[in-house]
């Protein structure tokens, strides 16, 4: 380093931060506004403005396919009819079933896989990458090609199940049967998103320092005891984070299920978003569907907030 540059470097260390900052060009405050501005404008235009518009529409009987019809202010009527509509409650039930089982299975299998991969066997990098592929795919495309795998009689899934269990493949239809369709979407979602949970759990497992296990070994704690008292509690915040992200995503699940079953048969797999789409873009009940959209948003937002509080509580324990 030449002498002048060395001097500048020393001067830089000696100068308190902030002194040089205001010397030339735009002030930091101006730059901060300039830099945050575009993002905020974009979000205001394409997120907040539409959301406020949805809120406004939710109090009217507006129909987007008849823009010239008289728009009446109907007060909270839309909200009342959404909350008393048995179809909506069926959709919420389907969503709850989907949420519970996908989260349960994904956490179970995802954690188990992460636990195994953490043994660092030969080639674990290669197999981990293979496992990660499904979650990078387009949910719509996944839904579409699983519809192919689920084809009654000729689908690969039916063939594999009948090969392993001996049940004739023509005796069950995954997406055509009222009993099996809710499980068909759970299977695909689990196939697709278990890697996501696995990755988060793996980060959790890798964050546990070895010395804790060594200390436990000194205390002659059994492997099982170590698992219960060290591994599980240390990974818990990570698992909870995975539940949060999967929960939010699956609560608004639309693409994969729309392509796989489009809500059928009957309304057995009609999740909240699918009902919303039907009401808004097929029946064109814009006011009614706006009210439902607002209710869903408040529910996700509220539940997520409560959950984050619980998560922070666990983290800071």
């Amino acid at each position, binding site marked *: 380093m030449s002498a002048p540059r060395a001097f500048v470097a020393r001067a*830089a260390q000696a100068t308190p931060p902030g002194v*040089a900052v205001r010397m030339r060009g735009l002030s930091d405050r101006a730059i*901060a506004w300039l830099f945050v501005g575009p993002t905020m404008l974009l979000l205001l*235009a*394409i997120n907040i403005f539409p959301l406020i518009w949805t809120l406004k529409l939710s109090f009217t009987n507006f129909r987007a396919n008849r823009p010239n019809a008289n728009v009446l202010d109907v007060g909270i009527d839309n909200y009342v009819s959404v909350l008393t509509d048995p179809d909506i409650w069926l959709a919420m039930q389907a969503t709850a079933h989907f949420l519970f089982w996908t989260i349960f299975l994904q956490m179970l299998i995802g954690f188990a896989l992460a636990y195994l991969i953490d043994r660092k066997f030969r080639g674990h990098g290669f197999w981990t990458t293979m496992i990660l592929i499904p979650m990078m795919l*387009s949910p719509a495309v996944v839904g579409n090609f*699983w519809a192919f795998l689920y084809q009654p009689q000729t689908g690969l899934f039916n063939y594999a199940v009948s090969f392993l269990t001996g049940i004739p493949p023509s005796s069950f239809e995954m997406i055509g049967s009222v009993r099996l369709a809710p499980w068909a979407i759970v299977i695909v979602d689990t*196939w697709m998103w278990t890697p996501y949970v696995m990755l988060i759990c793996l980060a959790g497992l890798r964050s546990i320092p070895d010395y804790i296990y060594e200390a436990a070994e000194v205390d002659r704690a059994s492997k099982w005891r170590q698992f219960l008292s060290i591994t599980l509690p240390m990974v818990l915040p990570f698992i909870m*984070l995975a539940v949060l992200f999967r929960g939010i995503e699956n609560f608004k699940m639309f693409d994969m299920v729309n392509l796989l079953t489009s809500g059928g048969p009957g309304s057995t797999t009609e999740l909240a978003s699918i009902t919303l789409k039907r009401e808004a873009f097929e029946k064109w009940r814009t006011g009614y569907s706006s009210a439902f959209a607002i209710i869903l948003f408040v529910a996700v937002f509220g539940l997520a907030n409560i959950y984050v509080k619980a998560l922070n509580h666990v983290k800071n324990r």
Partner: protein
Amino acid sequence: MSLGISSAHSVVEPSDRTRFIAGALVALYALITIVPLVWIVLTGFKTPPDSISYPPKILFTPSAEGYCNLFTTRSRQTPEYIAALPPPTDTCDKVARNANMVVAGPSNYVPRFINSLIIAFGSTVLSVGFGVMAAYAFSRFKVPFKDDLLFFILSTRMMPPIAVAIPIYLMYRELGLSDTRLGMILLYSAVNVSLAVWLLKGFIDEIPREYEEAAMVDGYTRLQAFRKVVLPQATTGIVATAIFCLIFAWNEYAFAVLLTSGTAQTAPPFIPIIIGEGGQDWPAVAAGTTLFLIPILVFTILLRKHLLRGITFGAVRK
């Protein structure tokens, strides 16, 4: 470690036998996971009857029919008409003639694929550009209500896309943006900018402030320091963020199916509606899917190191 614990290998190191069992189980899961994908790739090379045969055919004579049906539209003709035609000039002509058809023209797959590319890249440039600026401001300056703004940016991701689709649909109709690439680019940018800000803030936080301060003492302005010191340092992070935004925009379906119908339609709503004679043309769908997945597979391998950060908005780091 003393205290009677063998120092030959640490207590936390699994034994060879454990490793072998773990490896075998994980490999088994990975193979089962990958079967549906391999099946789709294979189906792209089958004939329609082979694709729906029972039992499913693992060994089959490869056929170009799926890819030809994906890229062309065909019309049925009488055998006499076909016999009178000059000999077929390319593979797809030949395939069509065998089924008593002639190639009528190109299909919509290529334009839809190009739309996907333009919209994905366009929105990525915009959201990463805005994201890197906002992330820098959030990382370095005292922005009023910083935490609230950051949380607000994150919370835009909690909205079900369909909840805002109605007003966006109405708004776009008014502005003439519906079914345009520009409209979709703006929309996907708004959805992606939250991820970009959160991820990039993490990456920029890791660059020591001293670099910029030294540069400013050297006579750079704040903006020059940002451009010549911070941006080059953040390149890896910017590339990783860009790929995540690309993948999201590439995969998006809900907005695409609700807000586009023709000129700006992307590939995800298009692939499932490829219909042959007698129902869905599965080999063509599989061929379209395979081509559509290739960029994602490449990106997944490139992104391995950053994957965790990207999917958790930087909330977890490896």
